[in-house]
């Protein structure tokens, strides 16, 4: 393994019937990421369930006892594999209707989404739903995997018709980085190997695309945003006056001597040192975790944000957001909740519920509450000002979670508009 391997996180969306588990099994199997003991365990299970000969690769992704008993996937599972070019983390999300929240969860950290469809069925309601969620959560790259091409005689016309329909829909959502690949996960065509059956297709097989898609610009590289996580005061003899602000650079670049603004106070100062365990740096950038010292003594605590850019973040107690409700308990508009946004935790209330989006038709409906898996546009008020950018500009400073203080559960995911 070379020391310059990059990390790519992707998710797969589609139902069991689209061959999603088979696709993941095929990726792992053909890239030689399945171990003999795993293969022998699923071979045993395939035989016990009366499988005819072929090993059921979909069994590789069935994790929990409850799932094996019921033959379903109940939650997000993460899988790992590597090629000499990249390390991959797959967020495996169930495609069943009630699990919108699982896809939102897995998509929130993904660079790329693979949306699976069955070539016989074409673009379905769930395909639109998955695509809408991917666009809502701002996944930078989309791959439409038109699977089961073996069931339509590997027909180029069928593939072209599906792609045309899908592209038209994706364009409405403003998705442009989109690739369509015909494949047969069952036979291994266009997953890792090209196979013999799709010679008319000029593009890369899926794995080659995953290895080469450019992800360096998935993070905002221009606007420096640095939420303070932890104030480091060693109070030892050697570091008597040391006061470092620890955090992770969520976007942009910082260099020693740069003038930064501390929000929400708005005070300015300069970066004196960029301290790390491995020595001080002259410059650092997202997503590095570092410690910054400053030239002036200013009262700074966790939840403050250091910023530097031509475009300043907004500092406000009011904002509008798209929200995905994740909890079985519906939203109670009369109650107060808690928001965690970057490193800041504050009380919040819902000022307005503008509309709920039907994820199947994208139509907007008025609504008096929100239930699990609902997506809606809301207006929120918070107790103390937040420092934020719009989610489209910055995935880290534009996102938040909502927590129910009574249960401590995470009840919603929000994206600031």
């Amino acid at each position, binding site marked *: 393994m070379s020391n310059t391997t990059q990390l790519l996180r992707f998710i797969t969306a589609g139902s069991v019937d689209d061959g999603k588990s088979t696709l993941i099994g095929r990726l792992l199997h053909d890239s030689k990421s399945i171990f003999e003991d795993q293969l022998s365990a699923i071979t045993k299970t395939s035989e016990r369930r009366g499988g005819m000969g072929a090993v059921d690769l979909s069994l590789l992704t069935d994790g929990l006892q409850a799932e094996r008993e019921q033959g379903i996937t109940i939650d997000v599972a993460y899988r*790992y594999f590597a090629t000499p070019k990249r390390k991959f983390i797959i967020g495996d999300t169930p495609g069943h209707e009630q699990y919108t929240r699982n896809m939102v969860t897995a998509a929130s950290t993904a660079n790329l989404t693979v949306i699976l469809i069955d070539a016989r069925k074409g673009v379905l309601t769930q395909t639109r739903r998955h695509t809408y969620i991917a666009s809502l959560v701002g996944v930078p790259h989309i791959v439409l995997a038109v699977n089961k091409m073996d069931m339509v005689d590997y027909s180029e016309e069928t593939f072209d018709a599906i792609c045309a329909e899908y592209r038209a829909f994706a364009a409405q959502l403003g998705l442009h980085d989109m690739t369509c690949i015909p494949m047969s996960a069952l036979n291994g065509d266009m997953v890792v190997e090209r196979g013999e059956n799709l010679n008319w297709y000029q593009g890369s097989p899926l794995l080659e695309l995953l290895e080469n898609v450019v992800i360096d610009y998935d993070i905002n590289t221009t606007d420096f945003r640095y939420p303070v996580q932890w104030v480091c005061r060693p109070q030892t003899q050697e570091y008597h006056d040391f006061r470092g602000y620890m955090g992770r650079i969520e976007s942009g670049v910082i260099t020693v001597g740069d003038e930064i603004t501390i929000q929400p106070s708005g005070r300015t100062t300069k970066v004196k040192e960029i301290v790390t365990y491995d020595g001080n740096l002259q410059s650092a*950038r997202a997503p590095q975790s570092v410690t910054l010292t400053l030239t002036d003594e200013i009262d700074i605590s966790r939840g403050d944000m250091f910023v530097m850019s031509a475009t300043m973040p907004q500092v406000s107690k009011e904002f509008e957001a798209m929200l995905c409700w994740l909890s079985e308990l519906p939203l109670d508009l009369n109650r107060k909740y808690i928001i965690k946004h970057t490193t800041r935790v504050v009380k919040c209330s819902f000022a307005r519920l503008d509309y709920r989006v039907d994820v199947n038709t994208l139509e907007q409906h008025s609504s008096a509450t929100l239930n699990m898996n609902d997506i809606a546009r809301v207006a929120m008020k918070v107790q103390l000002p937040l420092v934020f950018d719009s989610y489209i500009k910055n995935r880290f400073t534009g996102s938040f979670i909502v927590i129910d203080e009574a249960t401590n559960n995470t009840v919603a995911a929000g994206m600031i508009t």
Partner: protein
Amino acid sequence: MSNQSFTHLDVLESESIHIMREVAAECKNPALLFSGGKDSIVMLRLAEKAFRPARLPFPLVHIDTEHNFPEVIACRDKLAADLGERLIVRSLEGSIKKGTIVLKNADQGRNAFQSVTLLETIAEFGFDACIGGARRDEEKARAKERIFSFRDEFGQWDPKNQRPELWDTYNTRVHAGENIRVFPISNWTEMDIWEYIAREKLYIPDIYYAHEREVINRDNGILPVSHLVQPRPGEKVEKMMVRFRTVGDMTCTCPVASHARNAQEIIEETAITRITERGATRMDDQTSEASMELRKKEGYF
């Protein structure tokens, strides 16, 4: 570095540091579980990177089965002493004496009982968060677990009712008596661990490297001969060049045949191995398809 892409190790390291700092900032009384095994040694280095030049904002805690390899215990003590960090050790023997663990026989495997002593230790010190070195690639129940894994007052994990985890905005809130297990290296694989050990030149117990050892063949595995594992009638003691991929309970941790003498050679072996880490080395995980899931529900890591 500034115009180059970060490597997967850079990204994983930064993610783990970010997680540890969130724990320190938001949890009242966290602890870092530290056994002296390779994953916890990686965790210790990540903790140093997260908090230096200050001391760690949490103690190191080890739940000792007293079935551990002496080399691992020696390494645990040396690393804690070298760094001058506080190490708390609680032993299964303590729980056995109290009667909260009842063994069927004295040399029975002890991994399953660690949860009892862990929960007692959590109660004794009032820890609200325990940072552990579990990885999602180890086992399929772990593949479904969150980085911040909420436990009820009985330490139980409910896989069907986990808190959604979005972006890297972690919900660390618990009620009194409840607990969170935090896994900062969730997204690391066995290979990443070895690459990091090589990159950081970490000191680890030498039984991870190839050495000659007396072993016996039992139940489809090779077991190291020790004061806890003696040949039964008809079993033959052999000498083999082996290394350990994991270092758990001596009565059920199997070494693998190997000639790898350093981290780089282990990376080369790991790249071509065809058996998973736990599949090759843990007899207790092979008892049923769901053994890890069942133990986790009982409060095990």
